[in-house]
């Protein structure tokens, strides 16, 4: 089989249509093979650049594997306590209303430790954008059950799979938030396929547009692969996501603010 030399840009006339990563990414991350979180980070940073708000954006990053992104995202960032990002973002936004303020949280961070924060921030119509990276497990601590773990999913604290009798039902954060009047834009995307990534990026863009227009709270829940925490091969992450998480958490826009 012929293998094309991909060590250098092509010598014949060509135009670059996609770079390795946005210039706002300063270096490498050390997350697991097949992790979905870096993909979400990339499209988030691309949206900031495309909206030309890079130099007036402040991020608030919670605790999870994505916490290491603080080192590689070229954006002003507060690394906050577990679960508290929407509260911190509220304080930031209220004293710097001209900034775009976003949070980056996992499902352990947002659905477990800090569910109250995101609900109240949404109810207040806080003009911030919360990004939930939902992989249904505590990835950073090695794959334990979160409030977002879907029924039947095996984790290190639900070895036989989550059953409702023992562990209760998963919490659909985006749906809860969408039920609150202060929420102006709520959507759920995924990063499991190229199409889903493109859709998720559009959702993030609309979320920030909603914030910039002062319309209210916005949240994008992004289903991300965690093959390590799911105990599946990396290459099977997208398939597993589609078969399990996407069934419990359908993709799409739940609340849209109309211009």
């Amino acid at each position, binding site marked *: *089989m012929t293998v094309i030399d991909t060590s250098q840009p092509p010598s014949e006339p060509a135009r670059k249509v*996609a770079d390795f990563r946005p210039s706002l990414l300063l270096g490498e991350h050390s997350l697991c093979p097949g992790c979905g979180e870096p*993909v979400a980070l990339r499209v988030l940073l691309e949206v900031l650049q495309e909206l030309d708000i890079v130099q007036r954006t402040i991020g608030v990053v919670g605790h999870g594997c994505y916490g290491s992104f603080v080192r590689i995202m070229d954006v002003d960032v507060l690394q906050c306590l577990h679960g508290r990002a929407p509260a911190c973002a509220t304080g930031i936004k209220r004293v710097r209303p001209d900034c775009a303020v976003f949070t980056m949280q996992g499902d352990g961070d947002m659905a477990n430790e800090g569910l109250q924060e995101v609900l109240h921030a949404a109810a207040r119509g806080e003009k911030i954008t919360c990004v939930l990276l939902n992989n249904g497990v505590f990835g950073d601590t090695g794959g334990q059950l979160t409030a977002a773990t879907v029924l039947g999913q095996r984790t290190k604290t639900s070895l036989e799979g989550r059953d409702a009798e023992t562990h209760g039902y998963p919490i659909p954060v985006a749906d809860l938030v969408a039920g609150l009047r202060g929420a102006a834009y709520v959507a759920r995307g995924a990063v499991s396929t190229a199409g889903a990534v493109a859709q998720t990026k559009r959702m993030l863009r609309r979320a920030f547009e909603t914030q910039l227009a002062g319309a209210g709270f916005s949240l994008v829940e992004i289903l991300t692969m965690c093959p390590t925490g799911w105990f599946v091969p990396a290459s099977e992450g997208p398939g597993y996501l589609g078969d399990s998480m996407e069934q419990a958490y359908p993709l799409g826009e739940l609340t849209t603010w109309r211009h």
Partner: protein
Amino acid sequence: MSEHEGGARRSSRGTLVIAEDRCKGCELCIDACPPRVLVMSSELNEMGYRYPELTPGCTGCTACQMVCPDFVFSVYRLTAATAPGDRRG
């Protein structure tokens, strides 16, 4: 660019630069590639992972770059191979 040696001739409208040393071998790009022109290497990179290699037929669609968690791909569309009227993307 087109394939000049071996099997059936298959035209490429795009090509890639693959930062193979950054790859962690997750293989997400393999399934994500619509024309299925990426294959995993038999060699290992310096981190010990197999990495994708490009075979002829790339369309420059960027799907591999979209799904790659390790930012391995840069995508190019070849100007010469672009048929008139095909200005997608």
